């Protein structure tokens, strides 16, 4: 009797084999990790960010990206500041903010002075979160009292003494100056010079210092009728100052905007925002780029994965029928897909959008991707079915009485799995690219109140490319990483599933 040989090695299946090959491709493994990171970002960034897509703040627009880590390390990088070289009058304007409120617009109060023949110039890092300084606000009496209660509870000074209206600066009736709450100091009007020493058209304000070189305030002196009851008062306030000026609706007060923002979000709205801090900066509308990017990425991924899945399903079935049955069915079905594939995608989406209106643009986009997307999948599957349907083992199975459905599923389809998976993965970056292009061009507008798309972010940021390049940096970086890692990952998959194709693009 012959002994049956025992196999000691474990059998290796198709997927295990592919996985072994895939692991060996370092670039693809790294790419898949990056993809995981990007997907995690899109899922969690909007979830953990205190801001929402609909959040916006009129004062905090065009703020620079600020990373708390770099800020606490004291690095001059990603700290929400911008390097500036400014003439004397603007320098003092920013210096005065820190002197009054202790919130330094000039980072760390570090600056370098350059004396040129026509005046002094200062180089410093301007903190874009503090450069707003103080603003005048019109409040109702209720809000006014609320701020004061907040001040007493937290010990944070929000309200600052209001300046006396007849001392507020004005040059040639320029209302911008009068409405600027940051002129709290005594000044003189001089003809200014820009940072190159050239005379400015407009006159400027230079502070008048006292004998010790300190700013001298122009606060409104105490009248007793300002309704201020808070214990918080400005340091060293010997004659008392007025904190508000009554107007028609309530009072006009002078607040430090940063502190007011904290008060408003933590005390009034209670929306989880404690401090303005925008990791990726803010847009021209004062939206948080980080949250918008996360939300846009989420939308892109959602769309791309759904489209890819549906195309796989429809294209797979269509291609299988075409390839397996051949003949007239194949001929007719091929004509249909030929015609469909000749329609430019741009036209499909435009027509759909025109017909479906502005309300359901995501659906229109989805249908457009589907209408043109499944064809390539069908072609791939058809080819594989053509190749394998007449192999001997298939014929053997048929002779044994297997039905068409069984042959297709059990014997032919597994041969197509590799190409199907590769095709689906590679279609994801293509879909995301098209989606972002279309929303960039404004052909589709996915930007509703609570959702936005990367293309919209890019389109909004593009006009500020030269002035605020950081606005475009993060969305562009995100999409580059995404495309690159998906392409590498897809190539790795293709090589793993089909080693004979390696090196052939």
């Amino acid at each position, binding site marked *: 009797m012959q002994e049956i040989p025992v196999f000691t090695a474990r059998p290796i299946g198709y997927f295990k084999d592919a996985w072994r090959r895939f692991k060996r491709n370092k670039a693809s493994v790294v790419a898949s990790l990056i993809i995981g990171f990007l997907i995690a970002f899109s899922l969690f960034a909007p979830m953990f960010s205190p801001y929402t897509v609909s959040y916006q703040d009129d004062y905090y627009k065009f703020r620079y990206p600020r990373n708390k880590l770099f800020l606490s390390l004291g690095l001059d990088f990603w700290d929400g500041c911008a390097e500036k070289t400014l003439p004397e009058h603007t320098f003092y304007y920013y210096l005065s903010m820190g002197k009054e409120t202790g919130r330094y617009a000039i980072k760390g109060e570090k600056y370098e002075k350059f004396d040129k023949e026509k005046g002094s110039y200062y180089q410093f890092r301007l903190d874009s979160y503090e450069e707003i300084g103080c603003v005048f606000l019109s409040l109702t009496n209720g809000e006014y009292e609320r701020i004061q209660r907040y001040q007493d509870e937290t010990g944070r000074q929000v309200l600052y003494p209001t300046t006396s209206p007849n001392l507020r600066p004005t040059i040639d009736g320029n209302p911008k100056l009068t409405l600027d709450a940051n002129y709290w100091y005594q000044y003189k009007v001089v003809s200014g010079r820009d940072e190159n020493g050239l005379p400015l058209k407009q006159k400027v304000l230079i502070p008048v210092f006292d004998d010790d070189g300190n700013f001298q305030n122009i606060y409104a002196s105490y009248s007793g009728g300002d309704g201020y009851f808070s214990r918080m008062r400005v340091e060293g306030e010997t004659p008392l100052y007025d904190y508000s000026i009554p107007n028609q609706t309530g009072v006009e007060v002078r607040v430090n905007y940063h502190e007011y923002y904290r008060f408003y979000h933590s005390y009034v709205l209670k929306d989880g925002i404690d401090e303005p801090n925008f990791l990726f900066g803010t847009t021209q509308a004062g939206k948080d780029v980080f949250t918008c990017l996360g939300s846009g990425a989420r939308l892109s991924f959602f769309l791309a994965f759904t489209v890819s899945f549906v195309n796989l399903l429809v294209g797979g079935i269509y291609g299988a029928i075409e390839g397996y049955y051949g003949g007239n069915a194949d001929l007719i079905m091929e004509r249909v897909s030929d015609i469909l594939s000749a329609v430019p995608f*741009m*036209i499909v989406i435009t027509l759909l959008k025109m017909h479906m209106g502005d309300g359901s643009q995501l659906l229109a986009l989805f249908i457009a991707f589907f209408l043109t997307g499944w064809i390539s999948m069908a072609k791939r599957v058809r080819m594989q079915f053509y190749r394998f349907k007449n192999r001997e083992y298939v014929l053997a199975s048929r002779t044994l009485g297997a039905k068409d459905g069984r042959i297709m599923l059990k014997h032919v389809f597994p041969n197509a799995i590799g190409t199907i998976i590769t095709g689906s993965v590679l279609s994801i970056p293509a879909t995301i690219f098209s989606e972002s292009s279309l929303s960039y061009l*404004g052909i589709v507008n996915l930007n509703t109140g609570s959702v936005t798309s990367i293309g919209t972010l890019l389109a909004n940021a*593009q006009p500020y490319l030269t002035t605020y390049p950081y606005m475009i940096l993060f969305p562009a970086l995100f*999409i580059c990483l995404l495309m690159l890692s998906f392409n590498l990952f897809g190539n790795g998959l293709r090589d793993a599933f089909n080693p004979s194709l390696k090196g052939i693009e």
Partner: protein
Amino acid sequence: MFRYIVKRIALAFLSFFIIMTTCFFLVKMLPLVVNATLGQDAEIAEAQIVARGYRDPILVQYVAYIRRILFEWDWGVGVNMPEYVGQGVWGVFIEKLPPTVLINVYSTLFAVPIGILLGIYSALKKNGWQDHLVSTLVMVFVSVPSYVTAFLVQYILCFKLGWLPLTMGAGTEYFTWTTFRSMLPAVFSLSFGSIAGYARFTRAELTEVLTSDYLELAKAKGLTKSQCVVRHALRNAMTPIIPSIIAEFIAVMSGSLIIEKIFSVPGVGRLYLTAITSLDYDFFMMLSAFYTFIGLLAGIVVDISYGFIDPRIRVGKR
């Protein structure tokens, strides 16, 4: 071969016809919005629309539309875009074509030689550091979306270094130095992706040919390496590359909407975008026909040129 070509063209025309008919009916089913121009009576504007037959039943309009195109080459007139109201659609289109075509022709002229040379170089240095460098760069530029390249070009070349203007100059003098210079940023942005594509394609083809048996023979005969590559390998490697270049030359006509928008090129892409936003349907129909036509034409030319360039492929004889 001849029969194959005829069949291919006939099928393409059938596709074109079906697509455009569907497109026409879909467009005509939309409500026709008419904005009276400044100082124009809304009733007069409406009367003009009626006189053009735009309120007739769709089938009647369809027959009239085809008849006008076939016999008078009349694609309709602009209705909603202020600057083109009452102008013939075809005339406006022809006027907008040069910048689009020029930018794309320049970028192809720029990209093809560089891309192919890079591809040849990295194929010859296969698995050397030069090859890895080129392959990595190719991967990056194939993946990075064209608009990101455009932003980079605009920011670095145009803004930081100030070498080139930020956007394309207006005006119709296309062959002056100033206009040419203002086209360059768009040309560069378009080129990077194409260079990478050509380099990758050439490298793949050439490496395959370089390992084939007949090249071993050529080497065994005593040919020098350059003789081998230029006379034997390159010729065969070029057979699939040349049709793709031809196809690209045709496809460039349709241009890139996004590049045209970023660099405000006064071309066809911009016309298409404004036609969509202002719902000017005659323009939309005409431009759709154009894009569809270009796409089909490129496909046909590729298939046919394969047959001409590579005698091994006898498509006609099945």
